């Protein structure tokens, strides 16, 4: 009977130990790169360097997480309001200024379309700043019509920077600061207002010598510009 109890408690103890082992294993596989007593490697070097620079650590920077590193980490954690456990986890890494790999899905933040609005406004300003307001919107619309046309590049920057396509790009006038009007015109064009009636070309007859462009059917005239397809 006694033996049986002994056996049982031994088995239970084993199960318990295994369990802990397993849960440690799970923890490690989730939070991969925690550093603690016994860790080695480049990341430990990074930690030691920083702690040394800031006067928490006076041992050698050898990449081995030993007693001195351990107490330095604890000191650092205590000073910085972190949980004092001697383990360098994500929070401690951040406090140390070591980049933490974010594996979790992050909310999308890169997409805005704002750059294209500004570039379009610059092109409008450079090409048509003296024109009536809808003449400016129309120039923006022509650029966008080109983006959707097979004969032209498929992006706004592609169309604007196509060599020789726009005089204001060729002579650098595009790099002027676009005024509020050009920005407003760019937004209207991007929102779908198209006073050009679907044109992909425009030209000022007073300044254009290219004969071919005169052969294109004119859709409309706004200010000094003829808009054609």
């Amino acid at each position: 009977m006694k033996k049986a109890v002994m056996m049982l408690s031994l088995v239970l103890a084993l199960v318990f130990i295994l369990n802990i082992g397993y849960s440690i294993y799970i923890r490690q596989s989730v939070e991969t790169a925690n550093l603690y007593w016994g860790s080695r490697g480049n990341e430990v070097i990074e930690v030691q360097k920083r702690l040394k620079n800031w006067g928490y650590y006076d041992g050698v920077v050898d990449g081995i997480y030993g007693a001195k590193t351990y107490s330095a980490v604890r000191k650092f954690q205590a000073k910085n309001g972190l949980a004092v456990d001697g383990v360098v986890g994500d929070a401690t890494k951040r406090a140390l200024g070591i980049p933490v790999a974010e594996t979790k899905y992050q909310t999308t933040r890169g997409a805005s379309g704002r750059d294209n609005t500004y570039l379009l406004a610059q092109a409008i300003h450079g090409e048509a700043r003296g024109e009536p307001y809808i003449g400016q919107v129309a120039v923006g619309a022509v650029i966008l019509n080109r983006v959707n046309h097979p004969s032209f590049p498929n992006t706004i920057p592609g169309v604007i920077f196509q060599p020789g396509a726009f005089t204001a790009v060729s002579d650098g006038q595009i790099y002027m600061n676009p005024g509020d009007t050009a920005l407003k015109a760019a937004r209207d064009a991007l929102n779908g207002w198209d006073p050009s009636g679907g044109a992909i070309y425009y030209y000022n007859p007073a300044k254009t010598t290219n004969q071919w462009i005169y052969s294109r059917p004119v859709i409309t005239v706004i200010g000094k510009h003829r808009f054609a397809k």
Partner: protein
Amino acid sequence: MVLALLILGLAASGAWGYSQYTQKQEYRIFLQNQYNRMFYDLIDHVETIEVDLAKTMVTASPSQSLILFSDIWRQSLSAQEKLNQLPISHLTLSNTSKFLTQVGDYSYSLTKKNIDGTPASSEDWDNLEKLHNYAGYLAVELQKLRTEIQNKRVNLGEMRVEGNARLARVSDNIINQEFSRIEQQLVDYPTLIYDGPFSEHIQDIAPKGLTGAGIDYQRAVEIARDFLKGEKIRVVDKRSNGNGSIKTYGLDITTEDGNRIYMDISRKGGHVVWMLNQRDVNSVNISPNQAVEKAKDFLKQNGYDNMVPTYSMRYDNIAVINFAYLDGPVVVYTDLIKVKVALDNGEIIGYEAQGYLTAHHSRSLPEPKVSADEARDSISMRMDIKLPPQLTLIPLENKSEALCYEFRGQFEEDDFLVYINALTGKEQRILKMIKSENGVLTM
């Protein structure tokens, strides 16, 4: 003494001139290197396109043709991109550029066909054969041009025009002439009509929403005055007629306080195509909801009763509200009208109905073959959906329309719209909603 100074000055200016010269030479070579790289890459892409198109002729495996078509897609877009960075007039390049765009776009549409299990039609095979031959022609001509560049007969970086030292001016040089010659042969490649945004039919879609009889200019002026009821109009000037896909009268209106309002009114039916009021809005006195109500009322006054607001943008103290036509229970996104509301006094300062006038017609919408619950099962487990779906008609890339259930949902903190085709149960499209200070953007 004076002589010494003169010599010194001469030497200094000579040194300066020389450094200018070498610097210019460096820029020149740098540019030429860039252009050469583009040109060599271009030839490589076109060669690969020809070879890939040849391979599609003999493959019997759907997965292999999938790989080939996606490679053609990739190669042609890269080729097109490089072509359009060369210092050659875009007027000269338009056919070659169009050829490359359409080959790529067409291959992409065949990729999609392939995935859906639809085999390429005999017409498709016909097109592919012809496109293969044209790709071959283009490759050979580009190689000839390369030899000429190597033999220094043609210089890619040479962009100067006589008497004009402007660097970036694209000239009528030999390479331009060569390209116009190449282009002439490319004119007759087959007209490609397929399921993609650059298909030939997209460029000339006839508007469906232009109901009514033709009107004269006087009538257009009356319509304009009626449309701008709240404005004190001083004078209406005639602007150029519009000869785009919708034929219009152009009107420039000046108000009593000197403000300009521009309008285009269709010659058939007298519909307002668009209106833009130039005035700046400097304060905000009404809420976004009030703006939506103002816009709704405005549409009602002008005879558009069945319009529902779908989404809105806010910038420069104005709100742009999109309205879609409501056909029974179905939100028809193609029939789109945009209304711009000034947030200072709620005045309507912009209107755009090109979408509505192009797409709207009386449709006999099919009954869904898939129930809302069945459609729900097609949605990813990862998406969190709280509301029942909305039946919608959405525009596809080739300008056709598809009846879809629209599901609004979240993944983590991000918002999405997922469209499940109500006839096939297929996931048709995903839009990602991006919230910014200006409103919600969909991508």
